[in-house]
């Protein structure tokens, strides 16, 4: 079987198998779910290790004619960008299943929705056909509704509805953009590989590109999430159960920036060139505004939530530079931030399940009581603040380098954003985990050996890539130039 199809199919088949297992056999439900996410992780790792470095284009492509009358085909495959994001996704998906062992209520339904979500997200990263891209994109959005609505906490009714409606609104806006692209290109196909070649020969008129670009930018940007359409995101993080927060902040948000670079930038280069200064401005709003709002939060999940939307600003800034360095940085940052934020949400979830409060000032001194979890959170906080040795450092550095050339003021503001991040993360660490132990929490249990596994996996990912960034950067930089190759060479030079 094609490994890319396998990554999409195994979680989906897993969900079908779960439907056949009786509700009371929770052990089997958990085993099947673990297997359905572990196999894709294995496949993703295998592809990363066997990736033909330096060979541009798509690999492991599988194509099945689907609706030839409309130019629709099931076509999947990976390039250097999507293979890294698939690795991130499968890592978060598998560790999410492990973290979900604490879910005790309606276990079967939970894992069914969770696995459908995993399959949908994998499909988006793997699709090389715009129809299937959109299909998987919406399939990834909808399971969030029951996952947050049933197993969430706090303001979950409001949060889950707001999240679903925002993401769907973005999706349909993007759909209009995709359909217009289909109609205007004249190629009568949704085949992304073909469209790339076709549009290089027959570019869409500049005015049309400038008209279409905002549809895709804003449509996919909602999930990225771009300021000022980000307000659903921290709310959703806060209400979601831990594993869903992990996946949501770790992977789902990356769908937006991935779609922007894969479709909007690659297929509408002139549109991108015109609109990119705006994107850089939005990115700075994300970084600075998100950072300041995160400073003002009392609930730890809201802190990480706003911090996520702040960090996605760096990703957008990297894309906005429209040069390979910035693009490499953006993709690597998606990977690093995904692992970092998944770890942070897992740790917070572990504590919240026992304390039932996420207000940081009510915690206090938890490092004495739950040293392992505290260490994991501190590591995540340091990674988030961009400490060298973590993957976040090198990727943010690349984004700064790239943006210094393109948008000097933005680069300065972005560096200032790092200071803000360090401030609120370290403050959260100090208030929540150090100082005298709040006697209310003397009963807290630290992670068991089994429960430590997901943290170790995520931390290993962060440190390995942090110390040996070439491992992934070599793969990513294989494909970034071709994303930008549609741009007029003069424009790229001007940007550099």
């Amino acid at each position, binding site marked *: 079987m094609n490994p890319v199809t396998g990554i999409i199919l195994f979680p989906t088949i897993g969900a079908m198998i779960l439907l056949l297992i009786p509700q009371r056999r929770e052990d089997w439900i958990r085993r099947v779910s673990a297997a359905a996410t572990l196999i894709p992780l294995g496949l993703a790792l295998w592809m990363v290790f066997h990736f033909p470095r330096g060979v541009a284009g798509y690999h492991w492509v599988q194509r099945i004619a689907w609706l030839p009358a*409309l130019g629709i085909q099931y076509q999947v495959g990976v390039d250097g960008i999507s293979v890294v994001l698939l690795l991130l996704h499968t890592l978060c998906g598998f560790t999410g299943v492990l973290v979900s062992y604490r879910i005790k209520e309606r276990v079967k339904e939970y894992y069914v929705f969770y696995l459908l979500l995993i399959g949908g997200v994998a499909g988006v990263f793997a699709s090389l056909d715009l129809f299937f891209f959109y299909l998987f994109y919406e399939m990834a959005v909808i399971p969030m509704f029951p996952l947050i609505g049933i197993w969430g906490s706090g303001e979950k009714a409001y949060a889950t509805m707001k999240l679903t409606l925002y993401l769907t609104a973005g999706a349909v806006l993007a759909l209009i953009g995709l*359909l217009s692209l*289909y109609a205007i290109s004249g190629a009568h196909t949704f085949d992304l590989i073909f469209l790339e070649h076709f549009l290089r020969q027959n570019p869409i008129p500049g005015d049309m590109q400038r008209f279409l670009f905002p549809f895709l930018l804003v449509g996919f940007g909602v999930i990225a999430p771009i300021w000022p359409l980000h307000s659903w995101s921290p709310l959703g993080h806060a209400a979601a159960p831990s594993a869903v927060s992990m996946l949501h902040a770790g992977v789902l948000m990356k769908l937006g920036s991935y779609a922007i670079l894969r479709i909007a930038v690659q297929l509408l280069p002139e549109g991108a060139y015109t609109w990119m200064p705006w994107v850089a401005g939005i990115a700075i709003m994300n970084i600075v505004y998100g950072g300041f709002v995160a400073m003002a939060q009392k609930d730890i999940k809201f802190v990480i939530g706003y911090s996520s939307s702040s960090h996605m600003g760096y990703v957008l800034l990297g894309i906005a530079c429209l040069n390979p360095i910035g693009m490499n940085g953006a993709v690597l940052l998606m990977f690093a931030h995904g692992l970092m934020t998944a770890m942070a949400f897992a740790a917070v979830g572990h504590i919240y399940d026992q304390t039932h409060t996420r207000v940081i000032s009510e915690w206090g001194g938890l490092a004495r009581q739950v040293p392992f979890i505290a260490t994991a959170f501190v590591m995540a906080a340091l990674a988030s603040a961009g400490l060298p040795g973590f993957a976040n450092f090198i990727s943010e550095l690349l984004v700064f380098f790239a943006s210094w050339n393109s948008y000097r003021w933005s680069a300065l503001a972005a560096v200032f954003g790092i200071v803000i991040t360090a401030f609120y993360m370290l403050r959260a660490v100090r208030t929540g985990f150090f100082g005298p132990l709040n006697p209310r929490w003397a009963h807290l249990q630290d992670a068991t050996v089994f429960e430590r596994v997901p943290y170790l996996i995520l931390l290993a990912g962060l440190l390995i890539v942090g110390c040996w960034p070439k491992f992934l950067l070599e793969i990513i930089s294989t494909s970034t130039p071709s994303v930008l190759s549609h741009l007029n060479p003069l424009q790229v030079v001007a940007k550099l």
Partner: protein
Amino acid sequence: MTGMIHALLPELWLGLLFGVLLLLDLKWGETRSSTLSMIAAAGLLPVFPILVWQSGLPFRDLIGGMYRLDALALFFKGIFAAAALLVILMTRELERDIPRGHGEFTLLILTAAFGMFLAASSANFVMLFVSLELMAISFYVLTAYLQTNAGSLEAGMKYLILGSLASGLLLYGIAFIYGSTGSMQFSKIQEIMSHGQAMPVPLRFGLLLVIAGILFKVAAVPFQFWVPDVYQGAPTPVTAFLSVGSKSAGFLVAFRVVQELFILQAKQWTPLIVWVAGLTILYGNLAAIPQRNIKRLLGYSSIGHAGYILIGIATASRLGSSAVNFYLASYLFTNLAVFLVIAAFSRQTGSDEIRSYAGLSRRSPFLAAMMFVALLSLAGVPPLAGFFGKFLLLMGAVTEGYLALAIIGAAAVVVSLYYYLQIVYTMYADKPEDPSPIAVSLPVRLALWVCLAAMLGMGIWQGPLLQLSLAAISGS
């Protein structure tokens, strides 16, 4: 003669079935009504192989140009037969509400279906009008069937009065078309209009009135006022049949009249239909938001869906027309799944209030899951049938350059998701007031599995139905 019998076989079979059931009903009285409805359901099954077989026959007009055998007619007959079958499976949930006359209830569903079948094959305005009236009159009686229920009687009366008005408009329009062209025959009118000349004023007026009649049948703005009350008051199977059968018949007539007879002049009418489509989508979806009764909500949502389908009529392209066919077929199974759940639920609880669906996922995980899937399909979420229908319609609108209409349609998807997901949230996250489990009868269970298979099948493997939808357009 044999050719005629071959062409008329579905109608002859339905007539035979009707006669047999009528005699059995007389013989058995009220005692064995459920057996009777099962015979009716089983009797509808042979219609499908007959229709498949007929698709191999030469397509032509018969009986002095009254009756037309073509791919479009066969496609819609398939829709009508499937709708009637699933609705009959639903009627058994009503047994306790209907004091007497169970057998006639089933028979009236068959006469309505018979009217739809004839309408699908009409090649003459007189024939078309008579068959639509046969359908409408059956529905008037069916709507008011719960004789002890004031809501049902009110609904029946309202539908009768407004429906008669619409029939009058249609007939008046037909008279003008006859006056201008000198013929009732579709083929003759088509020939006259095929030169593409401008339409004289009386002809335009006539066509306008016919379009008004169609808009009433499909429940589009500004002829949608009857929908909420009738949908809420009518017995659930009747509401279900109205929403899929009567609506499909309306679109069928739209195809026959607007697209086949006046295709060259159709572009003049496009702005009108575009406006109607946009307003219908907005009205239906926005007015559905505050509803508390699930049948009323579905009434408004069915107005919204009519608006979506009108997008396909407005584009007047091959893609748009096949999208209409695809959408109607997917809407049939999706909407009937929702109504099957409603019928099963209200049989036990006696309530159609959305509030009373709280905790349905604990009381009957099966019904809740089916409702969830069906509502998502209605909202247009992949990989379900409703998604691909909407995708085709929006694609048709965008490729024909109706970007604003496509954006309205896309925005309404978000609105509709809001009110559908409210129901889902109530079913899954709220606590039930009465946690007693809900029993689901075998016919409903069976029908729901069929609907689920259809929703997933059409949503994932869209090819076969798309081929059929395209063939129904080009084969005529």
